[in-house]
């Protein structure tokens, strides 16, 4: 029934060898060649999962979902994905532990794991790296950035190609022979985008360019009528805010900033947030921690948990992002409109002025009062004796 075989070899005085052979049906199922690469998406928030899954499927991936670390382990073994997108804050078993277990298991150790999380702290990425994550992506990130990162990982660096399934091998790429060509010329795609552009020719269209151009052309008139900036510029704003908190507002011509974004991405190591641009235009960031020392009741809506941040990120659509600025903080990320931030700074200045006025011409004295406790005890006892007498 199981299509198995039993055989016995025996020699007198030496011993017997019993051999049982069974077909491993699960392995056969998993190693069946796939047409598209499979992504295991692990996130406990169903809406986020749905959003990324939809986009990944649209981008030509086969998506398997898991809602917690334990489920992820099971799905990873059952479905043998080509890559795992792992949210770090998960119920039942968190992403760090799940990644450690995946990397410790021979069946799943070679699957690249991308930590996909709302944690923006530097230590978090280090922790994810130690747990075995191959890359770290800070949410919110645009789905196309995520897809780009997945493709980059599945492509692998030219020096050490990672594990790739038949599905990953079938994934559409910008240029079919580009990796080999780059390797032969010694051009690293991660560190020399300019060289890459020159390689394919500055004006040479990339695969997907036509589709993107058509989409932009459809949206451009409406956007121009509303006076909106280009979406790419908005993304660069957001990512710059996450990368470098500052207290000032910087302005730079859009064209110049876009080229800066490219070079910044080029010098960033593989293990770092993706989609980071260095477009400094229209960036408002506030060192809230310092401000809080002066104004304890600053009118800021603090989203103090990662979960809230993630929920907030996911609620904010492109239109809202146009009107909001992301302020990265040591304890989370805050969405405020530019008007709110201006108001915040103004009220902070006023409150600071009030504090200064109150403090002016004042002196501070310290007063410490001590007693002899033993003597006080004796006094209590004496008094009670007297009152009893």
């Amino acid at each position, binding site marked *: 029934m199981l299509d198995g075989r039993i055989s016995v070899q025996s020699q007198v005085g030496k011993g017997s060898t019993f051999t049982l052979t069974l077909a491993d049906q699960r392995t056969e199922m998993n190693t069946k060649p796939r047409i598209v690469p499979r992504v295991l998406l692990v996130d406990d928030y169903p809406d986020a999962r749905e959003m990324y899954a939809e986009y990944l499927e649209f981008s030509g991936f086969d998506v398997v979902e898991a809602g917690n670390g334990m489920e992820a382990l099971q799905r990873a073994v059952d479905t043998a994905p080509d890559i795992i997108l792992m949210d770090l804050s998960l119920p039942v078993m968190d992403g760090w532990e799940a990644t450690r277990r995946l990397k410790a298991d021979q069946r799943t150790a070679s699957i690249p794991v991308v930590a996909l999380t709302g944690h923006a702290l530097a230590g978090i990425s280090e922790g994810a790296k130690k747990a075995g994550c191959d890359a770290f992506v800070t949410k919110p990130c645009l789905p196309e950035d995520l897809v780009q990162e997945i493709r980059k990982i599945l492509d692998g660096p030219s020096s050490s190609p990672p594990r790739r399934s038949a599905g990953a091998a079938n994934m559409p790429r910008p240029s079919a022979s580009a990796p080999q060509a780059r390797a032969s010329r010694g051009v690293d795609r991660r560190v020399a985008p300019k060289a890459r552009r020159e390689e394919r020719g500055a004006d040479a269209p990339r695969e997907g360019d036509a589709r993107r151009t058509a989409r932009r052309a459809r949206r451009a008139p409406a956007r121009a009528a509303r006076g909106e900036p280009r979406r790419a510029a908005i993304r660069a704003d957001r990512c710059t805010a996450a990368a470098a908190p500052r207290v000032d507002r910087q302005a730079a011509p859009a064209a110049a900033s876009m080229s800066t974004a490219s070079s910044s991405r080029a010098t960033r190591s593989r293990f770092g947030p993706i989609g980071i641009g260095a477009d400094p235009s229209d960036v408002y960031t506030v060192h809230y921690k310092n401000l809080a020392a002066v104004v304890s009741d600053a009118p800021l809506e603090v989203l103090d948990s990662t979960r809230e941040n993630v929920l907030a990120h996911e609620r904010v659509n492109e239109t809202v992002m146009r009107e909001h600025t992301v302020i990265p903080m040591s304890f989370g990320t805050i969405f405020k409109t530019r008007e709110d931030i201006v108001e915040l700074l103004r009220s902070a200045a006023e409150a600071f002025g009030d504090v200064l006025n109150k403090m002016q011409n004042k002196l501070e004295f*310290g007063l410490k009062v*001590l007693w002899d406790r033993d003597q006080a005890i004796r*006094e209590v006892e004496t008094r009670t004796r007297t009152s009893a007498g």
Partner: protein
Amino acid sequence: MGSRPGDPRGRDEDEDISRLKKEISGQKGPTYFARMQYGRLIDSALQSRSERYVADILDQLRDVSVASRINKPIGDKMIMNAAFLISRDQETAFDAKVKSIAGRFDKLTFKYTGPVAAV
């Protein structure tokens, strides 16, 4: 230094302590639990006494200070650890008040530091 006249809580406490003290001295058997209870009552009496001192001192200094901040006392000998914000023109009055209070509470030690410029 003693409970204020007419303070019913202090009087009850005193009576309890005195009753327990008599029990302990008159009892022939083990007095472990009675002594424990006695220690608790003494501690409670000391606590309420120190609170009364602090309230009294703060009350007297309120008129000559702009603001005050009470910090946690350090160690079991300290009963009050406070900082006061004083107007420059009230400095002499504050100084005199502290000295007068210190004179009244002869069993307490006052450690007085300042002035430190607030700005």
